């Protein structure tokens, strides 16, 4: 059981790291701000989400697991709204 859990953690965390790397690459390589924004918002939300998912089996108690989820939800929330706001700022700047 614990081996299975460990494997799950490894897979999820590994995938999370991959998304972080992908997001950063996008931030650096994409040609303009709007596409960079797209890369960022997909990547860091998924990256952190997968890391959290991987760490949940290792949480000491249900409350700690809940906190992990809340952390992710907060980042997701602020990421979603800020992406929209940054998008608007960028669009206005372009007009």
């Amino acid at each position, binding site marked *: 059981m614990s081996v299975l859990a460990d494997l799950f953690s490894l897979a999820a965390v590994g995938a999370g790291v991959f998304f972080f790397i992908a997001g950063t690459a996008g931030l650096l390589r994409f040609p303009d701000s709007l596409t960079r924004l797209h890369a960022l918002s997909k990547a860091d939300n998924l990256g952190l989400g997968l890391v959290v998912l991987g760490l949940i089996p290792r949480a000491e108690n249900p409350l700690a697991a809940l906190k992990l989820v809340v952390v992710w939800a*907060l980042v997701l*929330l*602020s990421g979603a*709204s800020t992406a929209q706001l940054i998008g608007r700022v960028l669009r206005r700047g372009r007009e």
Partner: protein
Amino acid sequence: MSVLPLLDIGLALLVVAVAAWTIAARNLFASVLGYVAYGLLLALVWVRLHAPDIALTEAAVGGGVTGVLLVTAGKRLDALKATRSGAGPGLRERIVAGALSALVAGALAFVVASLPTPAPSLAPQAAAAAAGPGAGLGNPITAVLISYRAFDTMLEKIVLLLAVLGIWSVGADDAWGSAPAPLRRARPDGAMVLLARILAPIGALIGVHIFWVGADAPGGAFQGGALLAAMWMVAMMARLLEAPRIGSRALRLALISGPAVFLTVGLAGNILAGSFFAFPPGFAKPLILFIEAFMVLSVAVALPMMVAGPPDGESKP
């Protein structure tokens, strides 16, 4: 353990690089952005130093609220179109300044590296005393702040109060009593209002949680209060709430409640437990939570008022 030292070194380099960026950046906005990033990274360093309480404080105050203070100030300076300032020092002065700073940093690094081993510590005394005046507190830092060094903490809350009054006192005479200028003049759009509507209540809940667990786990009055303060500012930025008038009696009472209750309980200790700031045996933990509740209130009110600035005659509440 072979990866951990590498992680530490990477983190250390990153912190120093971001700090250098805040000094080197061309514009103020970029510099302040760098400072917020720096605050986040520093919080990680504090965790690595086994200081989660400080990590929370640093992230909340050092990074978050100070960053907002500076960016708000920059915006207001822009609005005044008054960002004149002297040209920077010439190259020669810069070189001298750099050499001096490098010398100071080098000397300090040498001194820190030669701190004595074994290091002296009050941890044993704090552990021994944990059965006494700080009884029932699982978080030794809360015990130090509210019991052993309560005098410092109480006075520091008065410092906060004086800073609030000092900030108000630079306002115009005819504005006295009115509310500070809003954190945002223009009406915000839907996305920001929505974010604030969701973030503020959840954040407030987390702030209360951090205060509540502070007796036994990392957290406490200051950290909880600072998070609540941040959430109040979120609501103010979205114009969901307006800053109160500085003449308001309720505001004044909220601001003094922390130090006043602290002082009163301290004096009561003189009667009940034989010494100023002594807690009667068995009542230490409830009394400490009682004091902390009012300190949370004071901090949560004081920080946003300090960011909001002096009263502003133009903004009618």
